[in-house]
């Protein structure tokens, strides 16, 4: 059999429930009925209920089949996933909405994640499957979400709050614009294995990969030298060359970033910014990390105005005030010294004590 290629993904229209087929592009408005439950009303008057549940993302085929069973029972076999990896059950029969929710709650599916809630953290592979992690992904997310559970299933927050995690600076979790980001970091330069470098790496490419120009060729060893003063442990050299591993039980850990956002609602997208440069890897529950995240979110929840995202709140009160309110110590690492650093320095005597 000749291999068929380039046929693309299944056509989405074949997947849509009839109510969507009929009202495609003809939605008029929606309402948030309660946490985890939306209703969308079409111009035709038709209604579509969505019940959103949290997923661990790393799931077995059994879990998928289970979810399918539920969709068969309540949604005529239709469901979708969200851009943040939640499951959405698409219900066209009002009578099935409450039974579905009851069923889900009974079976341990967290119903929520809509509106002014914390939704599913976008995250990454970590020790499960990647070769460059500075921390785990699924484990921290589980530990953090156990702590933040109430904010997923209920509306207790002033605004949206997106928590994300990436296990190394590659930032596959695209944490760079999250209200709260958890980012794995290394703190030690690569330990060079010259044999591997010689055998497997293209020296010029490795040199070019270093953002700070810390790597230079070593004619003596026919390998590389890292200027450790200039290395900020990004791991980019390791991505290019297996001879330069950075992972280290003492060096590795987690950093916390806050105030990013993606949407352009009210204010344009913002980058998340470093507030805690290092917390240790402390499996299985990363207590320092979960505590830090919870503290930040609850400080924000306590002080922000309605509809004010983390970053919008901080922009209003000032970063210096954020640190006092959250009780976080300001560390030298927080001061930028990369290429756009001057844009972050304060050029005015106006600030708060």
């Amino acid at each position, binding site marked *: 059999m000749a291999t068929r*290629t380039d046929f693309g993904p299944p056509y989405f229209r074949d997947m849509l429930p009839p109510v969507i087929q009929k009202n495609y592009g003809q*939605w008029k408005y929606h309402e948030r009925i309660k946490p985890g439950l939306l209703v969308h009303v079409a111009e035709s008057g038709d209604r579509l209920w969505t019940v959103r549940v949290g997923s661990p993302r790393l799931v077995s085929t059994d879990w998928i089949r289970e979810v399918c069973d539920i969709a068969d029972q309540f949604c005529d076999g239709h469901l979708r996933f969200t851009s943040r990896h939640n499951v959405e059950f698409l219900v066209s029969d009002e009578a099935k909405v409450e039974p579905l929710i009851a069923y889900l709650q009974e079976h341990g599916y967290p119903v929520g994640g809509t509106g002014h809630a914390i939704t599913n953290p976008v995250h990454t592979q970590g020790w499960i499957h990647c070769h460059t992690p500075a921390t785990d992904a699924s484990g921290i997310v589980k530990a953090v979400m156990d702590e933040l559970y109430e904010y997923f299933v209920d509306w207790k927050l002033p605004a949206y709050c997106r928590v994300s995690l990436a296990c190394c600076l590659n930032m596959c979790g695209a944490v*760079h*614009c999250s209200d709260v980001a958890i980012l794995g970091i290394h703190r030690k330069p690569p330990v060079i294995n010259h044999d591997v470098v010689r055998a497997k790496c293209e020296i010029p490419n490795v040199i070019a990969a270093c953002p700070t120009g810390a790597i230079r060729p070593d004619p003596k060893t026919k390998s590389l030298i890292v200027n450790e003063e200039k290395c900020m442990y990004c791991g*980019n050299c390791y991505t290019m060359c297996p001879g330069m591993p950075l992972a280290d039980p003492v060096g590795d850990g987690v950093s916390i970033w806050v105030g990013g956002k993606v949407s352009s609602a009210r204010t344009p997208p913002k980058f998340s910014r470093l507030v805690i440069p290092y917390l240790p890897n402390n499996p299985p529950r990363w207590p320092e990390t979960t505590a830090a995240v919870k503290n930040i979110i609850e400080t924000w929840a306590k002080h922000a105005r309605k509809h004010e995202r983390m970053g919008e709140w901080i922009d209003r009160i000032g970063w210096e005030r954020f640190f006092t309110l959250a009780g976080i110590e300001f560390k030298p690492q927080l001061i930028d010294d990369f290429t756009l650093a001057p844009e972050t320095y304060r050029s005015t005597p106006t600030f708060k004590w």
Partner: protein
Amino acid sequence: MADSETPLLDELEEGPWPSFVKEMKRAAEKNEAAKDLLRQLERSYVDKVGHWKHGGIVGVKGYGGGVIGRYSDLPEEFPAVAEFHTMRVNMPSGWFYNTKKLRELCDVWDKHGSGLTNMHGATGDIILLGTSTDHLQPCFDDLAEIGFDLGGSGSDMRTPSCCVGPGRCEWACIDTLELLYDLTMTYQDQLHRPMFPYKSKMKISGCPNDCVAAVPRSDIAIVGTWRDKIRIDPVEVANYANDGLDIVQEVVMLCPTRCMTWDGKTKTLTIEDAECNRCMHCINLMPKALRPGVERGATILVGGKAPIVHGALLSWVIVPFMKIEPPYTELKELLDKIWEWWDENGKMRERLGELINRLGMRNFLKAVGLPAVPQMVKAPRANPYYFWDPEEVK
């Protein structure tokens, strides 16, 4: 518990949030690889480092991407994950499924892989997590059978994604789902065969809420918007006010352009539309009363990416407004020109945004034939270091 091989991970079975450890254990019941994965992960929890070797190139016939090779660095201890490659499977637009398709997928994966998946990966693919080299091709063939193709990896166009859009959202200013499908099909070659200087990501959101994070997370972001006025239903506005929405505090005062006025007596909301920047906030708060305009299209932004190599970038506006209608000719011509310029000028591992920074936005715009307009910038330059074409200096 005392005798468990995975005491640390076992702790993560507790707690209200659904447990990935439970999922791993479920898979482990049927699958040796899943079992060894669990055991190796426990080891990582003890050692505080990962236990995968660096990289490894594997694939399926005719494709350059779509599979991530992975090998344990402790193959003796965990032989079932000695080879443990991931397949990235292209999801349907908007992540819509019927249960039939999903079950077929599960069957294929139980046959060929660990039975573990990510639904979905951060780029949007279905991630089939862990199989051995000799299963890759058969697995692909079986996937093809049920209509699932691979997504991107390596220096290719990555699997593009889009928000739910017209499928369920009243604000979609463009048909995100159909556009995504069309582009995915048009660029199958770019998706499957790495040929670029580095990865290229595309994401499509139906409106500025950007539910698929196109602006920060894609080299090419297509975000729906409109050119005319917000449509107001005055009766529904008044209803929101009567139902307790504090229109002044929650809407008017948070409008970034302060282009709204509220007459509390007559309960009338007026929008000076010319000053509205279409941020969606007021619409978000009053979906029954306010709606995007009817002259719709998209803003195109480019350059977004994560930090590697020269720092994270958000995408930048290069086309303030483009009509987005099949067969999407204008858009595709632009995409072709962008990729061509990048392909010609980009260094290895240089994303589009970094190349624009290196060669200058001005050069980029000229190369792809776009006029300079103020919508492209937050503010004009503050430094006097700018160039003139000798032709202009006469």
